[in-house]
């Protein structure tokens, strides 16, 4: 189960962040923020290779004893960061990938909305619903 999902804009400010247990919201904010460094590092490491070949899914960014942080970056440098509970060992890499794919699709749908100004926070209900479904079932 993803416990926290965040969408970070290109300039590294959050467009959307949501965590499941409300009391740890601040902690997850901090975690996501620190994981941005790792994301940048991974991105720059692959930067030498052709951009086309750069994979969007970054994989495990940062494991701690409590949880694991996965990252995914789009071609427009919008980052998706997902914090997953470590105790949930059933989550495989494929599942994480599919979750990111869904996130990406939903994000694209939000972008397609002409009433959405890129750079604004995401208030879309559809996006919220999708994130909720992911956080509850973890898939």
């Amino acid at each position, binding site marked *: 189960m993803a416990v926290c999902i965040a969408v970070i804009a290109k300039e590294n400010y959050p467009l959307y962040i949501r965590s499941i247990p409300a009391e740890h919201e601040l902690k997850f904010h901090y975690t996501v923020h620190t994981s941005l460094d790792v994301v940048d590092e991974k991105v720059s490491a692959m930067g*030498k290779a052709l951009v086309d070949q750069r994979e969007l899914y970054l994989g495990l960014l940062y494991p701690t004893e409590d949880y694991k942080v996965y990252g995914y970056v789009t071609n427009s440098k919008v980052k998706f960061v997902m914090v997953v509970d470590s105790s949930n060992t059933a989550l495989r890499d494929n599942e994480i990938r599919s979750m990111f794919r869904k996130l990406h699709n939903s994000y694209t749908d939000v972008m397609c909305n002409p009433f959405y100004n890129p750079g604004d926070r995401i208030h879309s*209900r*559809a996006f919220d619903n999708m994130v909720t479904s992911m956080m509850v079932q973890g898939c």
Partner: protein
Amino acid sequence: MEGLTLSDAEQKYYSDLFSYCDIESTKKVASNGRVVELFRAAQLPNEVVLQIMELCGATRLGYFGRSQFYIALKLVAVAQSGLPLRVESINTVKDLPLPRFGASKNEQESRHTTSYSSDTENQGSYSGVIPPPPGRVQVKKGSVSHDTVQPRPSTDQQESTSPVVSPQQSPPTSPHSWRKHNRHPSGGNNERPLPGPGPFWSPFSEAQTGSSAGDAMWSGHSPPPPQENWVSFADTPPTSTLLAMHPASVQDQTTVRTVASATTANEIRRQSSSYDDPWKITDEQRQYYVNQFKTIQPDLNGFIPGSAAKEFFTKSKLPILELSHIWELSDFDKDGALTLDEFCAAFHLVVARKNGYDLPEKLPESLMPKLIDLEDSADVGDQSGEVGYSGSPAEAPPSKSPSMPSLNQTWPELNQSSEDTAIVHPVPIRMTPSKIHMQEMELKRTGSDHTNPTSPLLVKPPDLSEENKINSSVKFVSGNTVADGYSSSDSFTSDPEQIGNTVTRQRSHSGTSPDNTAPPPPPPRPHPSHSRSSSLDMNRTFTVTTGQQQAGVVAHPPAVPPRPQPSQAPGSHVHRPVDAEGLITHTSTSPQQIPEQPNFADFSQFEVFAASSVNEEPDDEAEMHPEVLQVEKTSDPSSSLRVAKPDGRVEEKTAASAPANVGKSTTPLAPPPKPIRRRLKSEDELRPEVDEHSQKTGVLAAVLASQPSIPRSVGKDKKAIQASIRRNKETNTVLARLNSELQQQLKDVLEERISLEVQLEQLRPFSHL
């Protein structure tokens, strides 16, 4: 007076009452007569009535204008609710039940039902008179009507009230910023049963249509019934039912209506379709929507782009967040554009929202775009919803019969189709060995192939070199360091640029070679395109040089024969480039190159290739190439050739490019390295490419010259094919061997690198994490 905010239900109700009282249609209601009766029927103490009249300003004016009347009615409602009468209470009191007027209720209700159903229009008109309620967001109405709304009186009859009401419509001055809202009560006042959708919001339009029919009836009836009603009403206690309804459905006129007109259930439903049955779209509504769609996009089968839709819906003055949500709901296929169905759904949602309905979480069935163009006609229960083929406005006209199930069935299909349209078909990319692939990518990125559509190879060498320089240099470095055997390292380091160029060229070749293999080249290609691994366009060289080099070429593949004439090759190549016939020269060089290829250490092959390829490439790159070539030429061509790419291809390519360059320098018109690249990729591919290049460019003499060679090769197809096949196979083995060797070198280098990195890590204290 101060601005009066009326809910839709209220407005209708009030307008009806006003019409009722406005016997003379003078838009003024005398203090006496019906008004008094009405107020008395409200069962309020006289003092209250007087107070109301004072507050609303009627005493000032001496009569009840429409606004005064409305205010008075509102105050009556306030009073009836037991709230103190204040001027502010007019607007501040929310969820105020409709003022109840004794006996007249029944009739009024029944009458009003229709009028209420025609809410939309009436309101529109009313809004004109009364200080327009803000954006007609009638919260009350929405919420209540939702629940209780039974199908509002269907349009037709109910609408009748609207005509009566229309008098006021005179000036829909309502600053409805939304002009569409303009129900133009246009003047027609009375008769304006809001004919057709017009610029009204659909809900209004519905009402209108209904009203039109009802108008006559209503107008006819209104005078008498009121009186009778008054009387009867006075007698009969406010129909308990009605009364009961009232409290329950305060703002819900519809409920009243439903009670009043069971028969008009359908109509009611139609009317309230936008409210009760919340998401059904009536005919009028749909027609209105369609008309609005046409104003934006004349083609009903077409789309409204997101930006246009945004502007359009922004006029409705709904908050952006809600509009955003509406968009999410209505853009079914998530394509950023609205079809007719989607547009109608969005419009409908906007209307509903403005009328106070909360937006649903997901799109109601009736609003889902469907293939069938169904209209939610008078069917009460039927949620034809917005089925509609975007392309058939004509069919829009009432055809409501369609059952939901059918719609639902069609919907999934539509969904799929719409989804399909959104699907982007992946473009197959030939996944040749990484090198080639990367080169292709680079080629594509650099936007190569100016002249040759089919061959992305046509990348300006300078550009390529710049872009690829780094990459190539990187690769080369690794390869070079590893390939000791190939004196490429020296050359490489010394000629990064050249290498880059060659690499780029090679890449372009590789990039194109797969492409070239795919489309059948104009002239029948005897040889199937070479597989990627073969960077050398042995095929080309072989086939092209049908006569000459074939023999030599054949000799090469079998083993790594000593470089036949490394010196000769360059020389020959040089000569060749001079030839106008790129192909020929190319072929001539190729054989030489081929034999040389097996000797990776010997990059003279590449030179040969380069020269030949250069010759063969009739592209405009000639201009570019000359410079490059000259550079390369000046530098040690062989060294450049020796650029030890980890991939044998690279080497070949560089070699090819070098020779090409050489050739180019010698022959300004020599075809650009394109042919070289091709060759590098695969003999077969290169060859066809070269041919194609030459054909296509046709700019340079070389091109022209090369062309003749094509027919020549064609002529000898059979034999050439077989020979080239053999040659290619041999070359393949050779190259494969080379490849493996280079790979090994690469691994070694990487290991070194890893060890170095480890050391670095140890030395550097946890720089990150």
